């Protein structure tokens, strides 16, 4: 983040803060670098993850180039690529070895260093204390550490470049025996070894963050705020934190075992009688790793989307000027998805060789997830119904989330059905699905959240017109990039292949690959609108008022650009977060912190002035 923005934070901290002169001035590195302020940590997560977003995106464009134009030199930068990446120095044609590293790093960076840190790290840190009306996290130092594990972890993963084998190259799923890399002697550090250490550290960061979120939500809610007075953003983050707490240690165990197989040549996952030149012990089972890995990584898919579901719900309600339809149903749906998320991991393994009887179990549990997911979709549509919908950049990104999630959800049913999965498993159909959910879903949700909370984060409004340009370009090029991947998948195009032209049955798909690549490049460059908008608005943006969207939740009670400690008034919560367009009010919103009585008549809230009737009904 720019120093300007941060020093603004201090000035905007305003006169009020100076009343608390009992805390002495912190040195600069405690304010901007090793800060315990949840808002600064959120900005640090944002900066780090947006940086990695562009690294991961660049890797994706390399992959796309190779698929569309196999064996042709990369334009513009081809001649300056490192010699280990290309067939011969200066040729600009990437090698199959580097291609495997690219797809591994693209997936790993996007999942572990972009979407999870943005969804959980940035929004978790920024939203939870502000939206529950408290000064900071329950455990601020732990919080600081949860961020400061991420940059070293990123460096460690990226330094795979300097090892003899290059970056990790076993896919983001890192299935052994491939990921054990036993062709190199034990005690050799390969890119894969570094990958394992790095992901282990990120996992640790997740655990610390989640522990903090759970503690904060349970203990530090403002006076009067019941659990069912929390906005859905907080619910989403809270339930996600519980999932991360339960799932990540399992991943850590899997990574530790794989690390030992990789570095010490033990045999948790290595069976007997591998025909290999290197010595190892034998007697392990490769599929065990898949079970352990997906026991975390399937919930991780929901870790990457549940917080955004919450955020999108809040954005939809605010800009429709309506209560969220079926608030409690939404909470139960999030909880339902979270619970089911833990019993469906086997659907990644239908063709893995596990007993097909287990396939039946996992297929049925997976299909059940479609139910809470449809409940969410219908409730979002219900929220739009009879609203007064304002199409801000935040709202449009939130609507994109909903619509792309519908497509991603529907394409998920194909994979959930195990017999259909036989053919589409490990093809581009899966790639299309994951990108509809993680890019079309999570990333558009993240954009919505950034457009929505940017004023509170930096004290400046993001430019709406640039925001809209960013949205239109992203939304259109996103669909042009990822929708045709469904077609590739149906044609049988496998994932992770370096050159589709090797196969006769893929010959006809060349033009589609080319089309996708051109769209992907456009999609990549569309993100420059976003970067430009952020930089432009930080410098020249309109100064944000305290509550620019006229929203109800507690973060808008804080000063326009809150300093350490967040609030300048005592916060008491009087009602649920979604009392928009209440009858008997002059304005179409009714903040949670504003005193006043209401009654509930047939699912409508009506404000009452009668002093005798002091019953306060919430949003339910």
């Amino acid at each position: 983040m720019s120093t300007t923005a941060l020093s603004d934070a201090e000035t905007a901290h305003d006169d009020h803060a100076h009343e608390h002169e009992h805390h002495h001035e912190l040195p600069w590195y405690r304010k901007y670098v090793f800060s315990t302020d949840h808002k600064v940590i959120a900005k640090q997560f944002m900066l780090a993850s947006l940086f990695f977003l562009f690294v991961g995106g660049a890797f994706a464009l390399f992959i796309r180039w190779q698929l569309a134009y196999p064996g042709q030199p990369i334009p513009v930068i081809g001649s300056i690529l490192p010699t280990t990446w290309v067939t011969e120095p200066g040729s600009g044609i990437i090698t199959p070895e580097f291609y495997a590293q690219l797809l591994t790093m693209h997936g790993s960076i996007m999942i572990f260093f972009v979407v999870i840190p943005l969804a959980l790290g940035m929004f978790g840190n920024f939203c939870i204390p502000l939206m529950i009306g408290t000064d900071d996290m329950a455990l601020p130092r732990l919080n600081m550490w949860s961020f400061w594990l991420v940059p070293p972890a990123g460096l460690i993963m990226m330094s795979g470049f300097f090892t003899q084998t290059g970056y990790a190259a076993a896919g983001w799923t890192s299935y052994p025996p491939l990921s054990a890399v036993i062709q190199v002697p034990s005690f050799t550090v390969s890119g894969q070894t570094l990958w394992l250490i790095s992901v282990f550290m990120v996992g640790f960061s997740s655990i610390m963050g989640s522990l903090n979120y759970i503690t904060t939500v349970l203990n530090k809610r403002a006076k009067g705020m019941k659990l069912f007075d929390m906005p859905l953003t907080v619910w989403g983050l809270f339930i996600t934190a519980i999932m991360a707490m339960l799932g990540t240690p399992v991943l850590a165990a899997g990574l530790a075992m794989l690390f030992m197989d990789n570095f010490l040549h033990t045999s948790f996952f290595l069976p007997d009688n591998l025909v290999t030149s290197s010595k190892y012990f034998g007697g392990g089972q490769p599929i065990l790793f898949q079970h352990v890995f997906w026991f975390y990584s399937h919930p991780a898919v929901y870790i990457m989307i549940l917080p955004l579901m919450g955020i999108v719900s809040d954005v939809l309600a605010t800009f429709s000027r309506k209560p969220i339809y079926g608030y409690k149903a939404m909470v139960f749906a999030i909880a339902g998805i979270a619970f089911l998320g833990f019993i469906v991991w086997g659907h990644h393994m239908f063709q893995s060789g596990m007993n097909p009887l287990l396939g039946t179990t996992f297929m049925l549990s997976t299909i059940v997830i479609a139910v809470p997911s449809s409940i969410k979709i219908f409730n979002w549509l219900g929220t739009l119904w009879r609203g007064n919908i304002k199409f801000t950049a935040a709202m449009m990104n939130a609507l994109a989330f909903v619509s792309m999630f519908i497509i991603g959800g529907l394409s998920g049913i194909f994979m959930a059905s195990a017999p259909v999965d036989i053919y589409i498993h490990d093809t581009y159909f899966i790639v299309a699905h994951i990108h509809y959910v993680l890019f079309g879903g999570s990333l558009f949700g993240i954009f919505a959240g950034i457009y929505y909370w940017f004023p509170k984060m930096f004290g400046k409004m993001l430019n709406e017109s640039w925001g809209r340009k960013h949205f239109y370009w992203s939304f259109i090029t996103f669909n042009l990039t990822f929708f045709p991947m469904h077609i590739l998948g149906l044609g049988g195009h496998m994932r992770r292949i370096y050159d589709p032209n090797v196969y006769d049955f893929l010959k006809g798909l060349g033009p589609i690959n080319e089309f996708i690549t051109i769209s992907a490049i456009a999609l990549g460059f569309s993100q420059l609108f976003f970067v430009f908008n952020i930089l432009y608005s930080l410098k020249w943006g309109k100064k944000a008022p305290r509550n620019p969207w006229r929203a109800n939740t507690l973060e808008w009670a804080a000063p326009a650009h809150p300093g350490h400690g967040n609030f300048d008034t005592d916060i008491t919560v009087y009602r649920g977060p979604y009392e928009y367009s209440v009858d008997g009010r002059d304005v179409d919103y009714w903040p949670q912190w504003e005193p006043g009585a209401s009654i509930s008549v047939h699912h409508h809230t009506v404000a009452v002035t009668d002093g005798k009737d002091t019953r306060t009904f919430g949003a339910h």
Partner: protein
Amino acid sequence: MGGILKVFDMLVWFPENISTFGQELDNLFAIIYWVSVIIFFLTFGVMAYFLVKYRYRPGRKGYNYHGNNIVELTWTILPTILFAWIGLYSDDVWARTKYSSKVPQADVEILCLGRQFGWTFLYPGADGKFGRNAFTDRTARNLMSTTNIFGMDSTSADGMDDFVTENQFRVPVNSNVVIRGSSIDVLHSFFLPHARVKQDVIPGTWMAIWFNLFKTGDYELACAELCGSGHYSMRAEYKVVSLAEYDKWLDTKNAEVIGARQPQPTPTATADTATVASH
């Protein structure tokens, strides 16, 4: 109407199906696909309608309404019924194609090993029986090496006529083929796009992969699980031929095996060398 539907018909992108259960899988795909198309247009239609109808108007006020349990219940139960039906129907097809108990009596049985980066097949030869090897006898796994990946015991009488093919195999049309698949190094996935077959093969475990193909011709086998930098090149070809042609081919192969064994003074010690003579 038919013309309009054709625009949305993504099923035309499938490669031609040549396997008996393939049609069933494709039909199931089609059912889910058309259900999805309907749901897509319903939800997007409703959404677009709301977005236009309830767009911002200065005098308009949102409708403060918190939801209705009967509505919630309806849109919980209806999808549950729909998805439960899809689940149960899918399970039926899944059980028939993949359950171990449903693997049919083999007309042709072949062993297949994946390796970085290629596929090797072992046929039981003229006697239709495999000799002692890593599949038929667990203890023979100790014989596995880079030169004898199937761990074949050269002293085994049944194994004398077993022969190996590299990156190609042949199966007769309209026969139940059971392929016992495994790997010697990392995970691979045995993917026959036209036959709608996909099964990961795992070192240390033998998977039963079965199919019955009804159309003769030349087709391709691909690896569908990332197995290293050469993953993309792990291609093999297979021929589906008439039974007569298949028998003729077996005879030729048998002659080759016997031919390769002739000059050797002690036949028992030569099973290894014979099997190296591939296609």
